[in-house]
């Protein structure tokens, strides 16, 4: 009965989700601890400063897209297939705009923060890295979310139970990986 579980019940129910996020955390931690990334951290001022904000907003943007799609499916407002439906395209475009805007915003406040405390920072470099990382995460997160939610829904899975772990796992792992790609691309261009 809900609300009357013992500590052991709660532990057993929560452990799988926690373990998924643990494995994801270790994956992203390994990318973060890799030699290339550590070199990037030393070379680009502000990278560690923007890291938590970048990771947290992935969850905010794509978690809410997932929640919206899932509510839409439950209400029968959208159908679980890929079709140029107005609501579906609106939701997707809006999350893309949100993701990109916030990525640029993070780059700018990071730069201002660095300046405020008298550190050197390169605005163009930070914005470039965030645009590349933000764009790649948007493309990946939106496609995977739609695929998982629609396929899951058609097979009888409640999307509400799936979105959380999917967004945290993919958001963290690929967020840090795309950050690395961004550093590489911007380093090659600038």
């Amino acid at each position: 009965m809900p609300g009357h579980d013992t500590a052991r019940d709660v532990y057993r129910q929560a452990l799988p989700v926690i373990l998924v996020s643990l494995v994801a955390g270790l994956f992203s931690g390994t990318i973060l601890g890799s030699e290339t990334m550590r070199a990037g951290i030393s070379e680009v001022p502000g990278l560690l400063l923007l890291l938590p904000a970048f990771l947290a907003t992935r969850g905010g943007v794509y978690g809410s897209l997932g929640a919206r799609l899932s509510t839409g499916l439950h209400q029968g407002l959208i159908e679980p297939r890929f079709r140029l439906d107005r609501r579906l395209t609106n939701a997707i475009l809006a999350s893309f705009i949100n993701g990109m805007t916030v990525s640029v915003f993070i780059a700018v406040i990071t730069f201002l923060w660095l300046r405020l405390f008298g550190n050197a920072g390169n605005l163009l470099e930070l914005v470039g890295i965030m645009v590349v990382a933000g764009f790649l995460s948007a493309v990946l997160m939106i496609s995977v979310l739609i695929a998982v939610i629609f396929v899951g829904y058609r097979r009888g899975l409640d999307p509400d139970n799936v979105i959380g772990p999917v967004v945290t796992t993919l958001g963290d792992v690929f967020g840090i990986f795309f950050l690395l790609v961004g550093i590489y691309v911007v380093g090659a261009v600038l």
Partner: protein
Amino acid sequence: MSSTDSGGDGDREYVDEWSIRRIVRTMIPLLAALSVLQLVSGTVLETFEETLVTNPALLVLVPVQIGTAGNLASITCSRLTTQLYLGTYELSPSNPDLRANVGAVFALAGTVFGAVGVAAWGIGVALGGTLGLGRVLLVSLVSGMLLAVLVVVASVAAVEISYRVGLNPDDTTIPVVTNLCDVAGVLILFAVVSVVV
């Protein structure tokens, strides 16, 4: 862009709910505020840059610490909220449901941060770090258990406050508490790092 939306008349109301401008306008202020809050964690990370770059094991701990704090908080909050709605919630040390939640959070934290300590040490060594197993495990477990205390206190406080003030905890408290615990996770981790390492 939403002005060009068309559909059946009964559809209009829903289309508005799903208009791009509306979604963007509601989300952007929230996301911007969230980013500024997370700069606090970022500042801490930046302060420890040198320690982090020389000890990859500690860098491995960072995403795990951020993720697990928020997860534990969201599980505790949503369980307490459900009990609130079911009428079984009561702020008292003898409340069996509250005890079960608290016990589970500590057991989960012990399991996760024990495993994380060993894994982060192994990965750190593979990445060329020199920090010993004892130290990484100590950092991971001590910061993990402190985090569990914080998660329990913050979740109970949030649910209690939203109950008294009459806010819906699902809408307001949970996002706030999970984000605060994310930030606090990093603060606790580095408080422990500065003592141990």
